[in-house]
């Protein structure tokens, strides 16, 4: 199983019936493919849609129906559309139960940097700052390392997305949370030892006694 699939299947375990969920671009988008059976979630696209559905069949594209990345999508039965002011009211107002976003760096207190690499990549923050500041629960989906270097760091060197700590980081090696503002290892991926995670992590992790293997949503349903 490749890293993005593993990460998406683990994060899908966080979905609960009736949740309103915002998925970012990249690995987070894959989470929609692994919604557990019997769970109905509403996916929000911050450009103004609740009930975002899969990419349309060939020839059925509607130019006025896209996700926040500009991709053509569909609207599921029961979908709702609205303007950007309402969309971000939903986000800041605590109506979005969970957001799943990518990450460039997360520090040991759970602070996230995910929107710019000064001098290299200046895309703009889009909705990321509002999502991290406002969503009830913030889950980060990212590879554990980039170019061999840990993305979990003692202190973010890149500009922060928010001073609010994220709730959960899921990588292809581990699940990490931040109780009392301290990075804590909760789970390891199948076949991965605690020592492997610690060796790959460029910052101290608290290791709980009850570290256990990641539960994964098993089947892709599309």
């Amino acid at each position, binding site marked *: 199983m490749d890293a993005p699939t593993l990460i998406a299947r683990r994060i899908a375990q966080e979905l609960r019936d009736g949740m309103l969920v915002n998925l970012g671009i990249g690995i987070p988008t894959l989470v929609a493919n692994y919604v557990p059976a019997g769970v109905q979630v509403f996916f929000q*696209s*911050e*450009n*103004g*849609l609740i009930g975002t559905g899969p990419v349309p069949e060939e020839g059925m594209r*509607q*130019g*006025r*129906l*896209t*996700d*926040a*990345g*500009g991709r053509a999508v569909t*609207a599921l039965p029961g979908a709702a*559309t*609205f*303007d*950007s*002011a309402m*969309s*971000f009211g939903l*986000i*800041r107002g605590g109506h979005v139960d969970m957001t799943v976003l990518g990450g460039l760096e997360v520090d040991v207190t759970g602070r996230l940097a995910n929107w710019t690499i000064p001098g290299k*990549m*200046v*895309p*703009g*923050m*889009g*909705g*990321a*700052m*509002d999502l991290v*500041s*406002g969503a009830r629960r913030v889950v980060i989906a990212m590879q554990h390392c980039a170019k061999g270097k840990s993305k979990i760091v003692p202190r973010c060197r890149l*500009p*922060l*997305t*928010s*001073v*609010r700590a994220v709730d959960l980081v899921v990588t292809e090696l581990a699940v990490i949370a931040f109780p009392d503002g301290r990075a804590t290892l909760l789970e390891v991926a199948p076949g991965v030892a605690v020592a492997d995670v610690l060796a790959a992590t460029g910052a101290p992790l608290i290791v709980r006694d009850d570290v256990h293997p990641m539960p994964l949503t098993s089947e892709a349903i599309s």
Partner: protein
Amino acid sequence: MKTIALEQAAALIPDGTSVMIGGFMGVGTPERLIDELVRRGTGGLTVIANDTAMPGVGIGKLMRAGLVRRAVVSHIGLNPETQQQMIAGKTDVDLVPQGTLIERIRAGGCGLGGVLTETGVGTVVEKGKRTITLDGTTYLVEPALRADFALVSAFLADYLGNLTYALTARNFNPVIAMAADAVIVDAEHIVPTGVIPPDHVMTPAPLVDYLVAH
């Protein structure tokens, strides 16, 4: 509300003015008005919008033609031409969190001086801004935004100027229609008054100054 030809509508907009433009990655952008501004070469514009779309699409056409002096947007990641112009110093780009941007515009259209938001506190967005602490929570003071013109893309406009929008093409459009001195609408379809039922009107007619004729 006045119905005018496309050429006349674009001619209302002088060089150096501020324009709010609807659209999200080019979806819900009044393309005909953009094309006409490019044809006329209306330059030195301050564009307030969600993003600068992609090269050659929507607001990306204004960028490519070098007509934008300043862009107040949340995202330029899909338009490398905007990034190049920013680095070259040809266009000033103010990056604003998307929720803050739309709420500043909403405030501008609703007679408010600005908004208080937690978004951006403790980040580079806070630089140069005042903060206010209320009941233990610190907020940034973000001022209201208005513009000389709003260029709105609608799905239906009736003969009076009542508007509806379609699907995710709504985005910034009804909000900017409240926040500019002159509102110019390009609608996909112009329909007889009464076709849009009262409960379905998203922008009421008195907000619309000009409807571009088909």
